[in-house]
């Protein structure tokens, strides 16, 4: 067991480390960290297996610069975004195992599970409207001098405020 992994680290240490790692990732791969792009491809890939033709949709023409090559080479399920997402899960798992804090968690009740599902659907839909999640649109967007990241930030704060009120009203 590793003592320095037992307690949550201060936010500023996590922030500095994430920032440095994002710079390393950008230097090595040519693109900054993003998460939901991988899930988008998976979702579209599943639709394709079901007989739809999502990659002909207007939506993917906008993101051709990002996903064009992956789609062209049929690397829908295994691509650089998938590898990054597996890395996030593997890294978290390693950290929690080293801290001896691994534990399978259950849903507390149906209500919590339904709210989690509803929240997940809203987050997924919102991430597609904004072109990314907290990571791709905000965390990687601000250092890229992207104006849309600042707009994203304002609306994330409004959304968090609304979310806290929903939480206090329905989940406490």
């Amino acid at each position, binding site marked *: 067991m590793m003592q320095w992994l*037992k*307690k*949550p680290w201060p936010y500023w240490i996590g922030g500095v480390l994430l920032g440095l790692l994002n710079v390393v990732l950008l230097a090595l791969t040519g693109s900054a960290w993003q998460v939901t792009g991988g899930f988008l491809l998976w979702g579209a890939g599943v639709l394709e297996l079901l007989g739809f033709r999502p990659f002909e949709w207007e939506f993917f023409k906008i993101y051709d610069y990002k996903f064009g090559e992956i789609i062209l080479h049929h690397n829908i399920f295994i691509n650089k975004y998938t590898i990054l997402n597996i890395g996030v899960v593997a890294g978290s798992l390693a950290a*929690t195992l080293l*801290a*001896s*804090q*691994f*534990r399978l*968690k*259950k*849903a*507390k009740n149906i209500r*919590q599970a339904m709210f989690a599902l509803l929240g997940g659907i809203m987050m997924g839909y919102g991430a597609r409207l904004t072109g990314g999640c907290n990571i791709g649109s905000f965390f990687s967007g601000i250092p890229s001098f992207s104006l849309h990241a600042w707009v994203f930030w304002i609306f994330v704060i409004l959304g968090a405020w609304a979310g806290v009120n929903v*939480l*206090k009203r329905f*989940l*406490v």
Partner: protein
Amino acid sequence: MEVRDLDCLYEPCPIPLIKAIKELKTLNSGDILVVHSDQSCVGAVIVEWAEQNNYPVKLVETNVGEWEVYIQKP
């Protein structure tokens, strides 16, 4: 002196803290509230809140990935 348990297993931040603050309001001076949680951040935020508000507090890891936070009402 009363010792009251508050089951917050499987509940993410900040729900256990909000529940604990509510529960403490119904306790008398000297009573102890024991918050049960399975998230490392829950212990951290409750200890931080208790220290800021001068509540004696103790965090114990009772099992793998499971904690009890003892808060005494001053």
